[in-house]
C-alpha cells in the first residue's frame, strides 16, 4: 500500500521544450490515498500513459517529484518501487508454465521455494487459474494471459500500487465485463492502490472510486463518477463523459444574468462579479434539458431512438441569416411526445454551469 504524491510534476519528450505544445504533461500536483481505485481517463494522446510510466518508474519526469509514502522515488527504477503493471496486450513468458510465470518475480527476488509455492497458489486461486498452473503459458487465450500478467503483479507481497494500461484492449467484448468485475472484486479483496488507465468511460466509471480526467497533458478534474457527471469542472469533461456529451453554448453575462442568444438562463452561479476570461460558455447536459411552454426558441431537427429514451437534436439561434445556429441536444423519455417544428427549451438551473475559457467559474 502506498500513498502516492505527485509534486509539481511535468514532462516533456523534447530536450528543450519551448512552449506549451512541447510538454506532454503540464505541471500537476496531486495526492492519491492508500488503497484507492483510481482511473486515468482521457482520449489518446492526453498524456495518461506518460503519467502512468512516470509513476511506475519506466520514465523519469523532466521536472517535479514522485513520492511513495513521502519517500522520494522520482529517479528510482521500477524494481525498487514495488509496483506492478499490466499492459495493453498480454505479456507472458511463453516458454514457461503458468506456475513459473507467476513465480518468476518472486524467484528473481530470492524468495525461498516454499514461500514461492504457497504465494503462487494463493494468487492463482484469486484469479481462477489454479487449474492451469502446469500448462504452458503460450497456450492460453488472451484473457487467460492477461490474468497471468495480473497475477505476476499480485504475487509479490510488497506491491504498493498496481497499474493497468488499457488492459482490456485485446479482450473479446463479451469477456470484457467479466474481467472488469473480477478486477473490481480483486480490488476489494486486496486493498492495494490501483490505477487504471483507459479511454473508455464505461471502464473508468465502473471501476474507479475516483476518476482523473486528463486532457492535453493536464488533469482536468478529479472526482467520483457522480461528481464528474453532475458537476463537470471543464467543458472537456462535459464532452467526454456521458453519451451524448454536455451541450456547450456560447453565452454572455450582463448585469448578473447569463444570456444565451439574448434569452436569460438561470444557472447555479450567483453572478455578483462579472466572470473574467475571454470565452464564456454555458454547459448543460441533455439529461437536464426539457421542452417547455416558453424559454429558448428552437427548431427540432432530428430524433434518434435510443431505446428507453430518445435523443432529440434541436437548432437554436440565427436571429439574422448570418448568425450561426447552435445545436442543443436533449433526452426525452420514450413515452413523451416530441414536438415538431418550433419549440421551447428550459435548462435545469441546478445543472447549468458557466465556463470561462473552458473552466467552470466560481
Amino acid at each position, binding site marked *: 500500500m502506498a500513498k502516492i504524491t505527485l509534486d509539481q510534476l511535468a514532462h516533456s519528450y523534447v530536450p528543450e521544450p519551448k512552449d506549451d505544445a512541447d510538454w506532454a504533461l503540464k505541471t500537476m500536483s496531486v495526492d492519491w490515498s492508500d488503497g484507492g481505485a483510481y482511473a486515468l481517463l482521457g482520449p489518446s494522446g492526453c498524456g495518461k500513459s506518460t503519467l502512468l510510466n512516470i509513476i511506475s518508474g*519506466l520514465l523519469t519526469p523532466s521536472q517535479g517529484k514522485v513520492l511513495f509514502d513521502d519517500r522520494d522515488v522520482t529517479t528510482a527504477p521500477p*524494481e525498487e518501487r514495488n*509496483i506492478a*503493471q499490466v*499492459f495493453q*496486450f498480454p505479456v507472458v513468458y511463453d516458454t514457461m508454465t503458468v506456475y513459473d510465470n507467476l513465480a*518468476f518475480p518472486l524467484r528473481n527476488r530470492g524468495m525461498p521455494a516454499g514461500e514461492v509455492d504457497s504465494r503462487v497458489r494463493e494468487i492463482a486461486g484469486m484469479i481462477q487459474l489454479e487449474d492451469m498452473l502446469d500448462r504452458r503459458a503460450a497456450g492460453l487465450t488472451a484473457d487467460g494471459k492477461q490474468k497471468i500478467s495480473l497475477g505476476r503483479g499480485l504475487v509479490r507481497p510488497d506491491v504498493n500500487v498496481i497499474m493497468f494500461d488499457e488492459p482490456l484492449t485485446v479482450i473479446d467484448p463479451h469477456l470484457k465485463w467479466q474481467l472488469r468485475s473480477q478486477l473490481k472484486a480483486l480490488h476489494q479483496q486486496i486493498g492495494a492502490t490501483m490505477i487504471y488507465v483507459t479511454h473508455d468511460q464505461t471502464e473508468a466509471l465502473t471501476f474507479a472510486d475516483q476518476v482523473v480526467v486528463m486532457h492535453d497533458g493536464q488533469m482536468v478534474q478529479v472526482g467520483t463518477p457522480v461528481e464528474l457527471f453532475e458537476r463537470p469542472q471543464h467543458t472537456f469533461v462535459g464532452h467526454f463523459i456521458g453519451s451524448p456529451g454536455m451541450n456547450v453554448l456560447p453565452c454572455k453575462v450582463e448585469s448578473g444574468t447569463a444570456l444565451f442568444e439574448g434569452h436569460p438562463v438561470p444557472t447555479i452561479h450567483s453572478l455578483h462579479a462579472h466572470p473574467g476570461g475571454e470565452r464564456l460558455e454555458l454547459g448543460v447536459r441533455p439529461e437536464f434539458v426539457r421542452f417547455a411552454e416558453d424559454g429558448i426558441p428552437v427548431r427540432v431537427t432530428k430524433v434518434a431512438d435510443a431505446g428507453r429514451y430518445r435523443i432529440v437534436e434541436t437548432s437554436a439561434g440565427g436571429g439574422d441569416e448570418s448568425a450561426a445556429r447552435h445545436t442543443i441536444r436533449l433526452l426525452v423519455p420514450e413515452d413523451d411526445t416530441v414536438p415538431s417544428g418550433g419549440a421551447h427549451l428550459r435548462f435545469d438551473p441546478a445543472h447549468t454551469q458557466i465556463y470561462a475559457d473552458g473552466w467552470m467559474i466560481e
Partner: protein
Amino acid sequence: MARKTTDQKGWLFVAPVVALVMFNAAIPLMTVVNYSVQETFGDNVFFWHGIGWFQDVLQSERFQAALGRQLLFTGIILAIEVPLGVAIALAMPRKGIWVSVCLVLMALPLLIPWNVVGAIWNIYALPDIGLFGRVINELGFDYNFTQSPFAAWFTLIVMDVWHWTSLVVLLAYAGLSSIPDAYYQAARIDGAKRWAVFRYIQLPKMRRVLTIAILLRFMDSFMIYTEPFVLTGGGPGNSTTFLSIDLVKIALGQFDLGPAAAMSLIYFLIILAFSWVFYTVMTRHEGN
C-alpha cells in the same frame, strides 16, 4: 491471415512457375539420374550400371575426405556465425539514424559477387602486399594461405564469416525489432536480470528467424563453391577441396559423367536430409 478457398484454378496461377522450375530442375535431374545409373565408353553408347556408381562414390576415399572437410567447415561456420550474428544484433541500436547506416554497411558484403569476394580475400590475405596477411605476419605468425593448409582453412573461415555473418545479423535484428517494448518493461518490473531477459524473452521470440538463418547458412555453406575456388582453388593440395569443388572437378574437369551424376544425387540427398532434420527439430515446438 487470409482464408483459403478450394479452387483448382490455382493450378493456372502456378503454371508459369511450375513450367520454369521444371524446365530447370526436372530435365537436368532426369539427365543426372540417367547418367548415374549408366556407363559409357564414349561415342554416346551407354550401358546399364545399376547402383555401381553410387557404391564407388560412397566408398571412395576421395569423396569421404571431401565430405569430411565439408562437414567440418560447415560446422565451424555455423558455430561462429550464428552466435556472432545474434550478439551483434543484440548490440545494435533500436532506433535512430544509425540504424539505417549500420544496416546498409553491414549488408554490403552480402551483395558482392562471390568471385570478387574470393578475389578480395585472395589479395587481402597475401603475406607481402595484403593488409591482413601482412599484419598477421608482423605479429609473428608464419602465415601463408597458399602453402599451409591450416592458414588456408583459417583464411577461408574468416572470409566466410566476413561474407555471411551479416545475413544472420539482419535476420536476428528483424526478429528482435518485432518484440514490443512492453515485454522489456514487464521484465524490468519483474526484476529480471539481463541474462533472463535474453533467455525468456529475446531468444524465444527470435526462434523463427533463427531457424531460417541457421537453415540458410547450413545450406549455403554446404553448397559453397566460388569463394574457396577463387581463394585457394581447393588447395594447397586438396586440403580445402569441399564437396562442390570436388564435384565440379569430376564433372566439368574430367567429364566423368557417371560418378559425377551419382555424387550429385548423393550430395543433394544429404542436404535434403540434414535440412529436413534441422527444420523438424527447430520447429517441433511451434504447434500452430
